[in-house]
C-alpha cells in the first residue's frame, strides 16, 4: 500500500465471481485482446475453462490466519509463495491477474497485499473486479454470503449476461448491487465484453483516489435491505480531531472488524491544510496524507463503511464525536 514505490510495483487485479458468471470469459478476453501488455495469471486449480496464456500458475487457495491476535486477519499463503516466485523474473509481464474460485471470500486475497512485506514491496493491488450473472444474482444473494462479500469488496462489478434479462430485471439487479456497495462501478455486459481499461489499470486502492467516485444514487435513500451486507456513509463539516478519530476507528476496527468489510474515508484534520485518506479491509488499516486542500474545497470529512449488521446511529454518533468542538 506504500505510495512511494508505485512505479516499480507490479499491479495486481483480483478477479472474483460466482461459478458460471463469466469470469473465465472475461479473463480470456483480457488476455487475448491486442493491447501489447503481458499478464501472469494465477488461477485456481478447479477453474472452469482453459486459459490460453504463456504464464499461468495454478493456485491452491490456502488461507491461513496471521498470528497477530486478529482473528479476521487471514491471508493467502499460496499467493505469497507464487508472487515471491514470479518476482524473481520480473520483466516477463506487466501485471498479475489473480482469479479466485466462485466460493471464495475476497478478504484474504486483498489482505495479503496489505500484510505480507514481500508482496507489499513487489506489487500493489490494482482493483477487485467481480463478475456477476444478471439472471442468477438475486438468488445467489439470498443463499450465499460469499456472493454478497464479492460485491461488497468490488471496485468494479461486471454485470454480465444482460442478454438474458429484461431491462426491468437489469435495473432491479443494479439496485440490489448498490444496496450492498454503491461505490463500485457497474459495467453492464453480455459475454463479459467490457473495455479492458475499465477493469485493468484502475489503481483503485491508491489512497489518493479514495472516494473519488461519488455514488450515483440518493445518499440517504432508505431502501429495504435484501442482504445482510450493506453500506453507510457519513459526512461532517467541522474539522476532525486526529487523536479522537484514531482512537475511535482503532477501537471500532478492533471490535467490529470482522463485520466491516471495507472502510474508506477522507478527513480534514483541525489545523492541517492537507487531506488525509484512510482505508481498511476488515481490521487492517492504511492511511496517509494525499495532498493540500484544494481552493474552494468544502472541507467535508467523509467516511464509508461496507459491512454486515452496520449500526447506523452508533456509527454516525461515533464519527460526529470526532469533530473538533466549538
Amino acid at each position: 500500500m506504500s505510495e512511494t514505490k508505485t512505479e516499480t510495483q507490479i499491479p495486481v487485479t483480483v478477479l472474483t465471481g460466482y461459478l458460471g458468471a463469466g469470469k473465465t470469459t472475461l479473463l480470456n478476453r483480457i488476455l487475448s485482446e491486442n493491447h501489447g501488455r503481458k499478464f501472469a495469471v494465477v488461477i485456481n486449480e478447479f477453474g472452469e475453462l482453459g486459459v490460453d496464456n504463456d504464464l499461468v500458475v495454478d493456485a491452491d487457495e490456502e488461507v491461513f490466519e496471521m498470528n497477530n491476535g486478529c482473528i479476521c486477519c487471514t491471508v493467502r499463503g499460496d499467493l505469497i509463495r507464487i508472487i515471491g516466485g514470479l518476482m524473481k523474473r520480473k520483466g516477463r509481464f506487466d501485471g498479475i491477474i489473480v482469479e479466485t474460485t466462485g466460493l471464495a471470500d475476497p478478504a484474504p486475497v486483498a489482505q495479503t497485499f496489505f500484510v505480507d512485506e514481500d508482496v507489499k514491496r513487489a506489487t500493489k493491488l490494482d482493483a477487485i473486479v467481480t463478475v456477476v450473472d444478471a439472471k442468477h444474482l438475486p438468488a445467489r444473494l439470498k443463499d450465499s454470503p460469499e456472493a454478497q462479500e464479492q460485491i461488497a469488496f468490488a471496485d468494479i462489478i461486471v454485470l454480465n449476461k444482460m442478454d438474458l434479462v429484461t431491462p426491468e430485471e437489469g435495473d432491479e439487479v443494479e439496485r440490489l448491487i448498490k444496496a450492498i456497495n454503491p461505490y463500485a462501478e457497474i459495467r453492464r455486459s453480455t459475454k463479459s465484453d467490457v473495455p479492458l481499461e475499465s477493469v485493468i489499470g484502475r489503481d483503485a486502492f491508491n489512497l489518493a483516489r479514495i472516494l473519488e467516485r461519488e455514488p450515483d444514487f440518493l445518499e440517504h435513500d432508505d431502501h429495504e435491505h435484501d442482504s445482510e451486507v450493506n453500506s453507510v456513509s457519513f459526512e461532517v463539516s467541522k474539522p476532525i480531531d486526529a487523536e479522537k478519530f484514531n482512537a475511535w476507528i482503532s477501537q471500532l476496527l478492533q471490535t467490529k472488524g470482522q463485520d466491516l468489510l471495507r472502510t474508506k474515508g477522507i478527513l480534514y484534520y483541525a489545523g492541517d491544510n492537507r487531506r488525509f485518506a484512510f482505508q481498511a479491509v476488515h481490521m487492517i488499516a492504511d492511511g496517509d496524507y494525499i495532498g493540500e486542500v484544494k481552493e474552494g474545497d468544502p472541507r467535508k470529512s467523509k467516511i464509508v463503511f461496507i459491512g454486515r449488521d452496520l449500526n447506523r446511529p452508533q456509527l454516525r454518533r461515533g464519527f460526529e464525536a470526532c469533530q473538533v468542538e466549538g
Partner: protein
Amino acid sequence: MAEVSEDAFLLASRGVARDLGAWVVGAVFDAANRAAFVLADGTLRLPDAGEWRAITAHEGGILSAAADIKDGWLTGGDDGLLMRTAPDGSTTRIADYKGKWVDHVAAHETGLRAAAVGKTVHLLGPAGPLKALAHPSSVGGIAFDTKGKRIAASHYNGASLWFVGAKEDKPRVLEWKGSHHAIAFSPDGTHVVTAMQEPALHGWRLTDGQHMRMSGYPTKTRSIAFTSKGRWLATSGAESIVLWPFFGGGPMGKAPTELAGGDEVMVTAVACHPQHEVVAAGFGDGLVLMAEIASGKVVPVAPPSGSPVSALAWSPNGAGLAFGTEAGRAGIVDLSRRS
C-alpha cells in the same frame, strides 16, 4: 561499513564478481567444492577461470537449488522439472511434475533427493522415485538431517518429520499455529527450527517436544543456519546477524547475540562456516561480510552493490564463499591459505 575502502573488501584481493542479469536464486557448492550460481532465468553459471560457463537447465525459471548427491547441482523450476546439472555442464531430467512448481529441493550424500511440489514432498533415490509424502498444506521448506535418516518439511501450523526409510509413512507432526517457511535441523538432529510468516522463529526440541519461540525481528526471517557444531543458530531479518545460543540451556530464556549491526540495513542471508564458528552475512544493500562469533571481529567481503543479497554459501572445505543478489550480481572469494 560506510567508511571501508574498496581495497579492504576480500573481493578486491581474493575474489571475482560478475553481473549475470538475473535474480540469483542460489550460490551452491557441490561436495567437491565446485561453485555454481543458479539464476531465476533458468540457467546455472559455473565460475571457471576465465569465462563463466552458462548452462540452461530449465525452460522456465529456477525456484530452488541444492548440491546434488555426490557432485553437481540439483534444481527445481517453474517448468515442473527436477534437473541435475553435472560438473561437466551436462544436464539430466530427474523428474517431471507436469508444470507444477518445484518450490524446494534437497539432496543428501547417502543417495537421496527430495523435491517439494505443492503439498507433496517427493523422495527419490539414485534410481528414481521412492515415495511421495503428503502434507496438509503447501510445503514451505525442506531439510534432511545430517545423517540423511529423516526429512523435515514445514507447512501451515507446523512441520512434519518423516523417517526416510520407514516402511509405513507416518510423520511426527510438530505443531505450532501459523505459516512456516525455511526449516533447519540442528547438526546433531535434536532440534528443528522454522522461520515463520510473522517475524519470528519457532523451534522444537525433539527429545521432549519443548517449544522454543524466538522473536523480536523487524522483518521476516528468510535465512537460518546452524554453526557447524550446532552451538549457534544464525538468522537474517534484523539489522545485525542474530545468533541464538543452543547451549547452556538456551535458547530458552537467553538473549541472542548480535553481530555486525549498526548500519540500519537488514541482513537478508546468512551462512555458517563448515568448521569454525564464523558466520557470513549478506545485507539488503548487497554488502557481504563475515564475523567471528567469539571475538565479534568483522571482515568485509564485498561492498554494497545496491541490491539485496539473495544467495550466500560456504564451500564444504571452508575455503570458498559465494554470494549473489536479487539484481544478478554474483561473486566468489577464495579464502584458502596462500603459500
